[in-house]
Protein backbone atom coordinates (compact mmCIF):
# COMPACT_ATOMS: atom_id res chain seq x y z
CA UNK A 1 0.00 0.00 0.00
CA UNK A 2 1.14 3.51 -0.88
CA UNK A 3 -0.07 6.75 0.67
CA UNK A 4 -3.87 7.03 0.40
CA UNK A 5 -4.00 10.82 0.45
CA UNK A 6 -4.30 10.74 -3.32
CA UNK A 7 -6.94 9.10 -5.46
CA UNK A 8 -4.42 8.81 -8.30
CA UNK A 9 -0.65 8.84 -8.05
CA UNK A 10 1.66 8.46 -11.01
CA UNK A 11 5.27 7.91 -10.02
CA UNK A 12 8.21 8.17 -12.43
CA UNK A 13 6.27 6.48 -15.17
CA UNK A 14 8.22 5.44 -18.21
CA UNK A 15 6.95 3.53 -21.21
CA UNK A 16 8.78 2.34 -24.29
CA UNK A 17 6.88 0.38 -26.97
CA UNK A 18 10.12 -0.02 -28.89
CA UNK A 19 13.46 -0.25 -27.11
CA UNK A 20 14.88 3.19 -26.26
CA UNK A 21 11.92 5.05 -27.82
CA UNK A 22 10.10 6.62 -24.89
CA UNK A 23 6.39 7.35 -25.09
CA UNK A 24 6.37 8.48 -21.45
CA UNK A 25 9.47 9.80 -19.77
CA UNK A 26 9.57 10.07 -16.00
CA UNK A 27 5.97 11.26 -15.69
CA UNK A 28 4.86 11.98 -12.12
CA UNK A 29 1.77 13.68 -10.74
CA UNK A 30 -0.94 13.21 -8.15
CA UNK A 31 -4.69 13.79 -8.11
CA UNK A 32 -6.30 14.45 -4.74
CA UNK A 33 -9.59 12.86 -3.79
CA UNK A 34 -12.54 14.92 -5.02
CA UNK A 35 -10.51 16.89 -7.56
CA UNK A 36 -11.32 17.14 -11.23
CA UNK A 37 -8.12 17.28 -13.23
CA UNK A 38 -7.69 17.74 -16.96
CA UNK A 39 -4.88 15.97 -18.81
CA UNK A 40 -3.89 17.85 -21.94
CA UNK A 41 -1.37 17.42 -24.67
CA UNK A 42 -1.00 17.11 -28.42
CA UNK A 43 -1.54 13.85 -30.25
CA UNK A 44 1.19 11.38 -29.42
CA UNK A 45 2.21 13.12 -26.20
CA UNK A 46 1.41 10.03 -24.11
CA UNK A 47 -2.02 10.86 -22.64
CA UNK A 48 -3.73 7.63 -23.66
CA UNK A 49 -0.66 5.58 -22.73
CA UNK A 50 -0.79 7.05 -19.21
CA UNK A 51 -4.49 6.26 -18.95
CA UNK A 52 -4.00 2.73 -20.27
CA UNK A 53 -1.31 2.10 -17.66
CA UNK A 54 -3.61 3.58 -15.02
CA UNK A 55 -6.30 1.07 -15.97
CA UNK A 56 -3.95 -1.90 -16.39
CA UNK A 57 -4.43 -2.15 -20.14
CA UNK A 58 -0.67 -1.60 -20.45
CA UNK A 59 2.30 -2.27 -18.20
CA UNK A 60 4.84 0.50 -17.62
CA UNK A 61 8.46 -0.04 -18.60
CA UNK A 62 9.30 1.44 -15.19
CA UNK A 63 7.55 3.45 -12.52
CA UNK A 64 4.21 2.95 -10.84
CA UNK A 65 0.56 3.96 -11.10
CA UNK A 66 -1.45 3.92 -7.89
CA UNK A 67 -5.18 4.21 -7.30
CA UNK A 68 -6.09 4.90 -3.69
CA UNK A 69 -2.55 3.79 -2.82
CA UNK A 70 -2.81 0.41 -4.58
CA UNK A 71 -0.41 -0.36 -7.43
CA UNK A 72 -2.71 -0.89 -10.43
CA UNK A 73 -0.32 -3.12 -12.32
CA UNK A 74 0.41 -5.34 -9.32
CA UNK A 75 -3.12 -5.65 -7.95
CA UNK A 76 -5.53 -4.49 -10.68
CA UNK A 77 -8.52 -6.35 -9.27
CA UNK A 78 -8.38 -4.39 -6.02
CA UNK A 79 -7.10 -1.11 -7.45
CA UNK A 80 -9.77 -0.83 -10.15
CA UNK A 81 -12.73 -1.52 -7.85
CA UNK A 82 -13.55 2.16 -7.24
CA UNK A 83 -12.84 3.14 -10.86
CA UNK A 84 -15.08 3.82 -13.82
CA UNK A 85 -13.00 4.08 -16.99
CA UNK A 86 -13.77 5.18 -20.51
CA UNK A 87 -10.75 4.76 -22.77
CA UNK A 88 -10.45 5.81 -26.41
CA UNK A 89 -13.42 4.61 -28.46
CA UNK A 90 -14.20 1.12 -27.18
CA UNK A 91 -15.85 -1.38 -29.50
CA UNK A 92 -19.29 -2.84 -28.95
CA UNK A 93 -20.79 -6.30 -29.11
CA UNK A 94 -23.22 -5.70 -32.02
CA UNK A 95 -25.40 -8.61 -31.02
CA UNK A 96 -25.96 -7.61 -27.37
CA UNK A 97 -28.29 -4.99 -25.88
CA UNK A 98 -27.44 -2.15 -23.48
CA UNK A 99 -29.22 -4.17 -20.78
CA UNK A 100 -26.94 -7.19 -21.38
CA UNK A 101 -23.78 -5.09 -21.29
CA UNK A 102 -24.74 -3.02 -18.25
CA UNK A 103 -25.93 -6.07 -16.34
CA UNK A 104 -22.57 -7.76 -16.93
CA UNK A 105 -20.65 -4.71 -15.73
CA UNK A 106 -22.90 -4.34 -12.69
CA UNK A 107 -22.18 -7.93 -11.72
CA UNK A 108 -18.43 -7.58 -12.30
CA UNK A 109 -18.53 -4.68 -9.85
CA UNK A 110 -20.37 -6.81 -7.31
CA UNK A 111 -23.64 -4.87 -7.43
CA UNK A 112 -26.73 -6.59 -6.05
CA UNK A 113 -29.26 -7.95 -8.57
CA UNK A 114 -32.13 -5.63 -7.59
CA UNK A 115 -29.89 -2.61 -7.56
CA UNK A 116 -28.46 -3.40 -11.00
CA UNK A 117 -31.86 -3.18 -12.73
CA UNK A 118 -32.81 0.05 -10.95
CA UNK A 119 -29.44 1.57 -11.70
CA UNK A 120 -29.57 0.48 -15.38
CA UNK A 121 -32.83 2.40 -15.75
CA UNK A 122 -31.28 5.41 -14.04
CA UNK A 123 -28.10 5.60 -16.11
CA UNK A 124 -29.87 4.94 -19.40
CA UNK A 125 -32.20 7.81 -18.57
CA UNK A 126 -29.17 10.01 -17.83
CA UNK A 127 -27.66 9.28 -21.24
CA UNK A 128 -31.03 9.41 -23.04
CA UNK A 129 -31.08 5.74 -24.05
CA UNK A 130 -34.07 4.51 -22.02
CA UNK A 131 -36.04 3.52 -25.13
CA UNK A 132 -33.09 1.50 -26.42
CA UNK A 133 -32.49 -0.71 -23.37
CA UNK A 134 -33.40 -3.94 -25.18
CA UNK A 135 -32.32 -3.04 -28.71
CA UNK A 136 -29.25 -4.64 -30.32
CA UNK A 137 -26.16 -2.39 -30.22
CA UNK A 138 -25.49 -3.02 -33.92
CA UNK A 139 -28.25 -0.51 -34.70
CA UNK A 140 -26.71 2.25 -32.57
CA UNK A 141 -25.18 5.42 -34.00
CA UNK A 142 -21.66 6.46 -32.92
CA UNK A 143 -23.09 9.04 -30.52
CA UNK A 144 -25.42 6.46 -28.96
CA UNK A 145 -22.55 4.00 -28.56
CA UNK A 146 -20.55 6.73 -26.85
CA UNK A 147 -23.43 7.54 -24.51
CA UNK A 148 -23.76 3.86 -23.63
CA UNK A 149 -20.02 3.77 -22.89
CA UNK A 150 -20.53 6.68 -20.50
CA UNK A 151 -23.46 4.84 -18.88
CA UNK A 152 -21.26 1.76 -18.40
CA UNK A 153 -18.59 3.94 -16.78
CA UNK A 154 -20.91 5.49 -14.19
CA UNK A 155 -23.18 2.47 -13.59
CA UNK A 156 -21.55 1.37 -10.32
CA UNK A 157 -21.26 4.94 -8.97
CA UNK A 158 -17.45 4.91 -8.98
CA UNK A 159 -15.37 7.02 -6.60
CA UNK A 160 -12.91 7.75 -9.39
CA UNK A 161 -13.69 8.41 -13.03
CA UNK A 162 -10.93 8.09 -15.63
CA UNK A 163 -12.08 9.48 -18.94
CA UNK A 164 -10.14 9.57 -22.18
CA UNK A 165 -11.68 12.08 -24.60
CA UNK A 166 -15.23 11.53 -23.32
CA UNK A 167 -16.78 14.01 -25.77
CA UNK A 168 -15.56 12.24 -28.94
CA UNK A 169 -18.48 11.42 -31.22
CA UNK A 170 -21.01 13.46 -29.25
CA UNK A 171 -23.14 16.27 -30.64
CA UNK A 172 -23.06 19.68 -28.85
CA UNK A 173 -26.04 18.70 -26.73
CA UNK A 174 -24.37 15.45 -25.72
CA UNK A 175 -21.14 17.31 -24.90
CA UNK A 176 -22.98 19.75 -22.67
CA UNK A 177 -24.76 16.88 -20.94
CA UNK A 178 -21.44 15.19 -20.24
CA UNK A 179 -20.02 18.46 -18.88
CA UNK A 180 -23.04 18.95 -16.61
CA UNK A 181 -22.85 15.35 -15.49
CA UNK A 182 -19.18 15.67 -14.60
CA UNK A 183 -19.86 18.81 -12.58
CA UNK A 184 -22.71 17.05 -10.77
CA UNK A 185 -20.49 14.02 -10.06
CA UNK A 186 -17.76 16.27 -8.71
CA UNK A 187 -20.25 17.95 -6.37
CA UNK A 188 -21.04 14.45 -5.09
CA UNK A 189 -17.34 13.92 -4.33
CA UNK A 190 -16.21 11.89 -7.35
CA UNK A 191 -12.59 12.30 -8.37
CA UNK A 192 -12.34 12.86 -12.11
CA UNK A 193 -9.26 12.51 -14.27
CA UNK A 194 -10.07 13.67 -17.78
CA UNK A 195 -7.98 13.69 -20.91
CA UNK A 196 -9.20 15.90 -23.70
CA UNK A 197 -8.08 17.95 -26.63
CA UNK A 198 -11.06 20.31 -26.20
CA UNK A 199 -9.45 23.05 -24.12
CA UNK A 200 -12.71 24.90 -23.50
CA UNK A 201 -14.25 21.73 -22.14
CA UNK A 202 -11.35 21.29 -19.73
CA UNK A 203 -11.32 24.97 -18.81
CA UNK A 204 -15.04 24.87 -17.98
CA UNK A 205 -14.95 21.61 -16.10
CA UNK A 206 -11.59 21.14 -14.37
CA UNK A 207 -10.00 22.53 -11.19
CA UNK A 208 -6.50 21.72 -12.31
CA UNK A 209 -4.75 20.97 -15.55
CA UNK A 210 -1.75 18.84 -16.43
CA UNK A 211 0.02 19.65 -19.69
CA UNK A 212 1.91 16.81 -21.28
CA UNK A 213 4.18 17.33 -24.24
CA UNK A 214 6.78 15.19 -25.90
CA UNK A 215 6.40 12.46 -23.28
CA UNK A 216 6.90 14.78 -20.26
CA UNK A 217 4.70 16.78 -17.90
CA UNK A 218 5.47 20.42 -18.65
CA UNK A 219 2.92 22.14 -16.40
CA UNK A 220 0.52 21.16 -13.61
CA UNK A 221 -1.49 23.84 -11.82
CA UNK A 222 -4.96 25.28 -11.30
CA UNK A 223 -6.69 26.60 -14.40
CA UNK A 224 -6.44 30.18 -13.02
CA UNK A 225 -2.72 29.91 -12.27
CA UNK A 226 -2.08 28.43 -15.68
CA UNK A 227 -3.87 31.36 -17.30
CA UNK A 228 -1.83 33.80 -15.19
CA UNK A 229 1.34 32.19 -16.49
CA UNK A 230 0.60 33.52 -19.95
CA UNK A 231 1.82 37.08 -20.43
CA UNK A 232 -0.93 38.92 -22.33
CA UNK A 233 0.57 40.60 -25.34
CA UNK A 234 -2.59 42.10 -26.80
CA UNK A 235 -4.89 44.86 -25.60
CA UNK A 236 -8.46 45.27 -26.70
CA UNK A 237 -9.45 48.92 -26.94
CA UNK A 238 -12.71 50.71 -27.80
CA UNK A 239 -13.04 54.31 -28.86
CA UNK A 240 -15.95 56.71 -28.76
CA UNK A 241 -15.21 57.85 -32.32
CA UNK A 242 -14.99 55.83 -35.50
CA UNK A 243 -11.28 55.45 -36.34
CA UNK A 244 -10.00 56.21 -39.81
CA UNK A 245 -7.11 54.50 -41.56
CA UNK A 246 -4.95 57.51 -40.63
CA UNK A 247 -5.91 57.05 -36.98
CA UNK A 248 -4.88 53.39 -37.14
CA UNK A 249 -1.56 54.39 -38.71
CA UNK A 250 -1.02 56.92 -35.88
CA UNK A 251 -1.68 54.23 -33.27
CA UNK A 252 0.66 51.88 -35.11
CA UNK A 253 3.35 54.55 -35.03
CA UNK A 254 3.30 54.76 -31.22
CA UNK A 255 6.54 53.44 -29.81
CA UNK A 256 6.13 49.92 -28.33
CA UNK A 257 3.04 49.11 -30.44
CA UNK A 258 4.01 46.29 -32.72
CA UNK A 259 0.63 45.44 -34.25
CA UNK A 260 -2.77 47.06 -34.79
CA UNK A 261 -5.72 45.04 -35.93
CA UNK A 262 -9.44 45.78 -36.32
CA UNK A 263 -11.85 42.97 -35.61
CA UNK A 264 -15.58 43.18 -34.93
CA UNK A 265 -15.39 46.96 -34.45
CA UNK A 266 -12.71 46.62 -31.78
CA UNK A 267 -9.06 47.59 -31.99
CA UNK A 268 -6.48 45.00 -30.95
CA UNK A 269 -3.08 46.44 -30.07
CA UNK A 270 -0.06 44.20 -29.86
CA UNK A 271 2.81 45.07 -27.49
CA UNK A 272 5.58 43.40 -25.45
CA UNK A 273 3.26 42.36 -22.62
CA UNK A 274 4.85 44.50 -19.89
CA UNK A 275 2.42 46.53 -17.67
CA UNK A 276 4.60 49.67 -17.98
CA UNK A 277 4.38 49.53 -21.76
CA UNK A 278 0.61 49.10 -21.56
CA UNK A 279 0.42 52.23 -19.39
CA UNK A 280 2.64 54.20 -21.80
CA UNK A 281 0.50 53.25 -24.78
CA UNK A 282 -2.70 54.31 -22.99
CA UNK A 283 -1.13 57.63 -21.93
CA UNK A 284 0.04 58.28 -25.50
CA UNK A 285 -3.42 57.47 -26.94
CA UNK A 286 -5.09 59.95 -24.61
CA UNK A 287 -2.47 62.65 -25.11
CA UNK A 288 -2.89 62.18 -28.89
CA UNK A 289 -6.59 63.03 -28.60
CA UNK A 290 -8.09 59.56 -28.93
CA UNK A 291 -11.27 59.25 -26.87
CA UNK A 292 -10.72 55.80 -25.29
CA UNK A 293 -13.88 54.24 -23.83
CA UNK A 294 -12.38 50.89 -22.77
CA UNK A 295 -8.87 49.50 -22.59
CA UNK A 296 -8.19 45.97 -21.29
CA UNK A 297 -5.88 43.06 -21.82
CA UNK A 298 -7.42 40.32 -23.92
CA UNK A 299 -8.89 37.35 -22.06
CA UNK A 300 -6.46 34.49 -21.70
CA UNK A 301 -7.62 30.99 -22.44
CA UNK A 302 -5.99 27.63 -21.86
CA UNK A 303 -5.54 27.62 -25.59
CA UNK A 304 -3.21 30.64 -25.34
CA UNK A 305 -1.16 28.86 -22.72
CA UNK A 306 -1.19 25.68 -24.78
CA UNK A 307 -0.01 27.48 -27.89
CA UNK A 308 2.62 29.51 -26.02
CA UNK A 309 4.05 26.57 -24.13
CA UNK A 310 4.04 24.26 -27.14
CA UNK A 311 5.76 26.95 -29.22
CA UNK A 312 8.38 27.50 -26.50
CA UNK A 313 8.98 23.76 -26.23
CA UNK A 314 9.62 23.54 -29.95
CA UNK A 315 11.68 26.72 -30.07
CA UNK A 316 9.08 28.41 -32.25
CA UNK A 317 8.98 32.18 -31.99
Amino acid at each position, binding site marked *: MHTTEFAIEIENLEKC*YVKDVKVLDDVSFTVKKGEIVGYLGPNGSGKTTTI*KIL*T*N*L*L*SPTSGHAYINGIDVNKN*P*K*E*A*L*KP*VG*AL*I*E*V*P*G*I*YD*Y*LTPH*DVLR*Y*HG*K*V*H*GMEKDKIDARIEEVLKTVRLSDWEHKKLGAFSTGMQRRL*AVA*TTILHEPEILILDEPAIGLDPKGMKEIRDMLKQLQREGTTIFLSSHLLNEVSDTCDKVIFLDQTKVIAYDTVENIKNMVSVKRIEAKFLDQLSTDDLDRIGAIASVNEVEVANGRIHIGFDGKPETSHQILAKLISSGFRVSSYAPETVSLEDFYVSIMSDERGVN
Partner: protein
Amino acid sequence: MTSLKNDMRTDISHLFLNIRFELKKHLNRKRIVLVVALAIALPILFYAIPPLLGGDYADTANAFASTNLGFITLLIVISGALFAGDAVSGEFEKKTGLTLFSTPQRRTSINVGKFAAALLATWFVISVYYLVTMLEIAQIFGFGAISVEFGMSFMLALIYAASVVAVIFFFSTIMKGTITSTLIGFFLLMLILPIIAGVLQFADVEPWFLVTYSSDVMTNVLGTSTGGFGSSGPAQRIGGGFSPDFYVGVGVMLAYAISLFLIGIGLANRRKME
Protein backbone atom coordinates in the same frame (compact mmCIF):
# COMPACT_ATOMS: atom_id res chain seq x y z
CA MET B 1 -7.12 -15.86 5.43
CA THR B 2 -10.69 -14.50 5.20
CA SER B 3 -9.49 -11.96 2.67
CA LEU B 4 -7.89 -14.72 0.57
CA LYS B 5 -11.12 -16.71 0.79
CA ASN B 6 -13.17 -13.69 -0.32
CA ASP B 7 -10.71 -13.05 -3.11
CA MET B 8 -11.08 -16.62 -4.36
CA ARG B 9 -14.86 -16.42 -3.99
CA THR B 10 -15.04 -13.31 -6.20
CA ASP B 11 -12.65 -14.90 -8.72
CA ILE B 12 -14.92 -17.93 -9.00
CA SER B 13 -18.03 -15.78 -9.22
CA HIS B 14 -16.34 -13.70 -11.97
CA LEU B 15 -15.40 -16.92 -13.78
CA PHE B 16 -19.02 -18.15 -13.85
CA LEU B 17 -20.22 -14.66 -14.80
CA ASN B 18 -17.84 -14.68 -17.76
CA ILE B 19 -18.90 -18.17 -18.83
CA ARG B 20 -22.57 -17.08 -18.81
CA PHE B 21 -21.72 -13.82 -20.63
CA GLU B 22 -19.75 -15.67 -23.33
CA LEU B 23 -22.49 -18.26 -23.77
CA LYS B 24 -25.01 -15.45 -24.15
CA LYS B 25 -22.77 -13.95 -26.84
CA HIS B 26 -22.61 -17.31 -28.68
CA LEU B 27 -26.41 -17.61 -28.47
CA ASN B 28 -27.08 -14.05 -29.63
CA ARG B 29 -24.68 -14.40 -32.53
CA LYS B 30 -26.73 -17.39 -33.73
CA ARG B 31 -23.54 -19.35 -34.45
CA ILE B 32 -24.65 -22.02 -32.03
CA VAL B 33 -27.93 -22.32 -33.93
CA LEU B 34 -26.01 -22.89 -37.16
CA VAL B 35 -23.84 -25.71 -35.80
CA VAL B 36 -26.69 -27.32 -33.87
CA ALA B 37 -28.66 -27.37 -37.13
CA LEU B 38 -25.67 -29.14 -38.73
CA ALA B 39 -25.43 -31.55 -35.78
CA ILE B 40 -29.07 -32.53 -36.35
CA ALA B 41 -29.01 -32.54 -40.16
CA LEU B 42 -25.88 -34.68 -40.69
CA PRO B 43 -27.02 -37.81 -38.79
CA ILE B 44 -30.52 -37.41 -40.26
CA LEU B 45 -28.97 -37.58 -43.74
CA PHE B 46 -27.20 -40.84 -42.83
CA TYR B 47 -30.52 -42.15 -41.54
CA ALA B 48 -32.69 -40.99 -44.43
CA ILE B 49 -30.51 -41.55 -47.49
CA PRO B 50 -29.98 -45.38 -47.46
CA PRO B 51 -33.74 -46.24 -47.59
CA LEU B 52 -34.30 -43.50 -50.17
CA LEU B 53 -31.62 -44.99 -52.42
CA GLY B 54 -32.85 -48.52 -51.77
CA GLY B 55 -29.81 -49.46 -49.68
CA ASP B 56 -29.58 -51.06 -46.24
CA TYR B 57 -28.27 -49.80 -42.94
CA ALA B 58 -25.12 -51.33 -41.47
CA ASP B 59 -25.54 -54.74 -39.82
CA THR B 60 -24.74 -53.67 -36.28
CA ALA B 61 -25.52 -50.63 -34.19
CA ASN B 62 -21.82 -49.85 -33.70
CA ALA B 63 -21.15 -50.07 -37.45
CA PHE B 64 -24.13 -47.77 -38.09
CA ALA B 65 -22.83 -45.35 -35.43
CA SER B 66 -19.33 -45.44 -36.93
CA THR B 67 -20.65 -44.47 -40.37
CA ASN B 68 -22.95 -41.88 -38.88
CA LEU B 69 -20.09 -40.27 -36.96
CA GLY B 70 -18.06 -39.78 -40.12
CA PHE B 71 -18.52 -36.04 -39.88
CA ILE B 72 -18.02 -35.65 -36.13
CA THR B 73 -14.40 -34.48 -36.56
CA LEU B 74 -15.46 -31.80 -39.04
CA LEU B 75 -18.30 -30.68 -36.77
CA ILE B 76 -15.97 -30.46 -33.77
CA VAL B 77 -13.47 -28.34 -35.70
CA ILE B 78 -16.20 -26.07 -37.11
CA SER B 79 -17.64 -25.60 -33.61
CA GLY B 80 -14.22 -24.98 -32.08
CA ALA B 81 -13.38 -22.43 -34.78
CA LEU B 82 -16.69 -20.60 -34.40
CA PHE B 83 -16.66 -20.49 -30.61
CA ALA B 84 -12.95 -20.13 -29.79
CA GLY B 85 -11.52 -18.56 -32.96
CA ASP B 86 -12.14 -14.97 -31.93
CA ALA B 87 -12.40 -15.50 -28.17
CA VAL B 88 -9.33 -13.40 -27.32
CA SER B 89 -8.28 -11.83 -30.64
CA GLY B 90 -11.77 -10.35 -31.06
CA GLU B 91 -11.44 -8.27 -27.89
CA PHE B 92 -8.28 -6.68 -29.31
CA GLU B 93 -9.33 -6.35 -32.93
CA LYS B 94 -12.73 -4.82 -32.14
CA LYS B 95 -11.40 -2.88 -29.14
CA THR B 96 -14.11 -4.26 -26.86
CA GLY B 97 -11.22 -5.18 -24.55
CA LEU B 98 -10.77 -1.49 -23.70
CA THR B 99 -13.89 -1.77 -21.56
CA LEU B 100 -13.62 -5.43 -20.60
CA PHE B 101 -10.00 -5.53 -19.45
CA SER B 102 -10.20 -2.34 -17.37
CA THR B 103 -12.77 -3.92 -15.03
CA PRO B 104 -11.80 -5.09 -11.54
CA GLN B 105 -11.38 -8.79 -12.21
CA ARG B 106 -8.48 -11.08 -12.94
CA ARG B 107 -7.63 -11.67 -16.58
CA THR B 108 -7.64 -15.38 -15.72
CA SER B 109 -11.35 -15.18 -14.82
CA ILE B 110 -12.08 -13.57 -18.19
CA ASN B 111 -9.89 -15.86 -20.31
CA VAL B 112 -10.74 -19.13 -18.60
CA GLY B 113 -14.40 -18.07 -18.88
CA LYS B 114 -13.97 -17.61 -22.62
CA PHE B 115 -12.28 -21.00 -23.02
CA ALA B 116 -14.86 -22.77 -20.87
CA ALA B 117 -17.78 -21.20 -22.75
CA ALA B 118 -16.28 -22.21 -26.12
CA LEU B 119 -15.75 -25.74 -24.82
CA LEU B 120 -19.26 -26.00 -23.35
CA ALA B 121 -20.80 -24.76 -26.60
CA THR B 122 -18.76 -27.31 -28.59
CA TRP B 123 -19.67 -30.09 -26.14
CA PHE B 124 -23.34 -29.15 -26.51
CA VAL B 125 -23.12 -29.49 -30.30
CA ILE B 126 -21.38 -32.89 -29.99
CA SER B 127 -24.02 -34.02 -27.52
CA VAL B 128 -26.77 -33.13 -29.99
CA TYR B 129 -24.99 -35.10 -32.75
CA TYR B 130 -24.61 -38.17 -30.52
CA LEU B 131 -28.16 -37.83 -29.19
CA VAL B 132 -29.64 -37.83 -32.69
CA THR B 133 -27.45 -40.79 -33.65
CA MET B 134 -28.49 -42.61 -30.48
CA LEU B 135 -32.19 -42.07 -31.24
CA GLU B 136 -31.64 -43.42 -34.76
CA ILE B 137 -29.89 -46.53 -33.35
CA ALA B 138 -32.80 -47.02 -30.96
CA GLN B 139 -35.28 -46.70 -33.81
CA ILE B 140 -33.44 -49.10 -36.14
CA PHE B 141 -31.87 -51.62 -33.74
CA GLY B 142 -33.75 -51.01 -30.45
CA PHE B 143 -32.57 -49.27 -27.25
CA GLY B 144 -30.73 -52.41 -26.17
CA ALA B 145 -28.35 -52.02 -29.11
CA ILE B 146 -26.86 -48.82 -27.71
CA SER B 147 -23.46 -50.05 -26.62
CA VAL B 148 -20.87 -49.09 -24.04
CA GLU B 149 -18.51 -48.44 -26.97
CA PHE B 150 -20.94 -45.81 -28.25
CA GLY B 151 -20.73 -44.12 -24.82
CA MET B 152 -16.93 -44.42 -24.97
CA SER B 153 -16.92 -42.81 -28.41
CA PHE B 154 -18.97 -39.93 -27.00
CA MET B 155 -16.49 -39.44 -24.14
CA LEU B 156 -13.57 -39.50 -26.61
CA ALA B 157 -15.35 -36.91 -28.77
CA LEU B 158 -15.58 -34.65 -25.71
CA ILE B 159 -11.84 -35.07 -25.07
CA TYR B 160 -11.00 -34.39 -28.73
CA ALA B 161 -13.22 -31.29 -28.59
CA ALA B 162 -11.19 -30.05 -25.61
CA SER B 163 -7.97 -30.39 -27.61
CA VAL B 164 -9.50 -28.71 -30.68
CA VAL B 165 -10.81 -25.78 -28.64
CA ALA B 166 -7.40 -25.49 -26.93
CA VAL B 167 -5.56 -25.40 -30.30
CA ILE B 168 -7.88 -22.74 -31.74
CA PHE B 169 -7.98 -20.76 -28.48
CA PHE B 170 -4.17 -20.74 -28.50
CA PHE B 171 -4.13 -19.12 -31.96
CA SER B 172 -6.72 -16.64 -30.79
CA THR B 173 -4.33 -15.50 -28.04
CA ILE B 174 -1.40 -14.87 -30.38
CA MET B 175 -3.06 -13.55 -33.53
CA LYS B 176 -4.12 -9.97 -34.11
CA GLY B 177 -7.06 -10.65 -36.42
CA THR B 178 -10.09 -12.81 -35.71
CA ILE B 179 -10.28 -14.18 -39.25
CA THR B 180 -6.60 -15.18 -39.20
CA SER B 181 -6.86 -16.92 -35.83
CA THR B 182 -10.03 -18.76 -36.84
CA LEU B 183 -8.76 -19.85 -40.26
CA ILE B 184 -5.30 -20.90 -39.06
CA GLY B 185 -6.84 -23.12 -36.37
CA PHE B 186 -9.39 -24.54 -38.81
CA PHE B 187 -6.95 -25.32 -41.61
CA LEU B 188 -4.31 -26.67 -39.24
CA LEU B 189 -6.77 -29.22 -37.90
CA MET B 190 -8.61 -29.99 -41.12
CA LEU B 191 -5.79 -29.83 -43.65
CA ILE B 192 -2.23 -29.31 -42.46
CA LEU B 193 -2.03 -31.91 -39.67
CA PRO B 194 -3.91 -34.59 -41.67
CA ILE B 195 -1.53 -34.00 -44.62
CA ILE B 196 1.50 -34.30 -42.32
CA ALA B 197 0.00 -37.47 -40.83
CA GLY B 198 -0.52 -38.88 -44.32
CA VAL B 199 3.03 -38.07 -45.42
CA LEU B 200 4.51 -39.59 -42.27
CA GLN B 201 2.50 -42.76 -42.68
CA PHE B 202 3.58 -42.95 -46.29
CA ALA B 203 7.16 -42.82 -44.99
CA ASP B 204 6.25 -45.62 -42.58
CA VAL B 205 6.36 -43.35 -39.52
CA GLU B 206 3.42 -43.49 -37.16
CA PRO B 207 2.22 -39.90 -36.44
CA TRP B 208 1.08 -40.82 -32.93
CA PHE B 209 1.93 -37.32 -31.67
CA LEU B 210 -0.56 -35.56 -33.98
CA VAL B 211 -3.91 -34.82 -32.36
CA THR B 212 -5.85 -35.25 -35.61
CA TYR B 213 -4.40 -38.74 -35.99
CA SER B 214 -5.33 -39.54 -32.40
CA SER B 215 -8.91 -38.45 -33.05
CA ASP B 216 -9.45 -41.70 -34.99
CA VAL B 217 -9.95 -43.42 -31.63
CA MET B 218 -13.45 -41.85 -31.56
CA THR B 219 -14.64 -44.21 -34.31
CA ASN B 220 -12.07 -46.98 -33.79
CA VAL B 221 -13.54 -47.60 -30.35
CA LEU B 222 -16.76 -48.71 -32.04
CA GLY B 223 -14.87 -51.75 -33.32
CA THR B 224 -14.97 -50.92 -36.99
CA SER B 225 -11.20 -51.30 -37.20
CA THR B 226 -8.87 -53.76 -35.51
CA GLY B 227 -6.92 -51.06 -33.70
CA GLY B 228 -8.19 -48.84 -30.98
CA PHE B 229 -9.68 -49.68 -27.62
CA GLY B 230 -8.01 -52.60 -25.83
CA SER B 231 -5.07 -52.82 -28.18
CA SER B 232 -1.59 -52.77 -26.75
CA GLY B 233 1.60 -51.32 -28.06
CA PRO B 234 2.13 -47.99 -29.73
CA ALA B 235 0.33 -48.78 -32.96
CA GLN B 236 -1.83 -51.27 -34.79
CA ARG B 237 -1.30 -51.62 -38.50
CA ILE B 238 -4.46 -51.82 -40.60
CA GLY B 239 -4.13 -52.59 -44.29
CA GLY B 240 -0.64 -51.19 -44.52
CA GLY B 241 -1.55 -47.98 -42.61
CA PHE B 242 -1.46 -47.09 -38.93
CA SER B 243 -4.21 -46.81 -36.42
CA PRO B 244 -3.81 -44.95 -33.13
CA ASP B 245 -3.49 -46.88 -29.91
CA PHE B 246 -6.40 -46.07 -27.61
CA TYR B 247 -4.37 -45.01 -24.59
CA VAL B 248 -1.72 -43.15 -26.57
CA GLY B 249 -4.50 -41.40 -28.51
CA VAL B 250 -6.30 -40.33 -25.35
CA GLY B 251 -2.99 -39.22 -23.83
CA VAL B 252 -2.09 -37.13 -26.87
CA MET B 253 -5.52 -35.48 -26.99
CA LEU B 254 -5.35 -34.68 -23.28
CA ALA B 255 -1.77 -33.41 -23.63
CA TYR B 256 -2.81 -31.01 -26.44
CA ALA B 257 -5.86 -29.87 -24.47
CA ILE B 258 -4.07 -29.23 -21.20
CA SER B 259 -0.80 -27.80 -22.51
CA LEU B 260 -2.34 -25.47 -25.10
CA PHE B 261 -5.03 -24.37 -22.64
CA LEU B 262 -2.37 -23.42 -20.08
CA ILE B 263 -0.09 -21.73 -22.64
CA GLY B 264 -3.09 -19.92 -24.17
CA ILE B 265 -4.30 -18.63 -20.80
CA GLY B 266 -0.76 -17.51 -19.92
CA LEU B 267 -0.39 -15.63 -23.21
CA ALA B 268 -3.88 -14.13 -23.05
CA ASN B 269 -3.26 -12.90 -19.48
CA ARG B 270 -0.04 -11.18 -20.54
CA ARG B 271 -1.41 -9.62 -23.72
CA LYS B 272 -1.80 -5.83 -23.48
CA MET B 273 -4.02 -3.33 -25.30
CA GLU B 274 -1.33 -1.44 -27.22
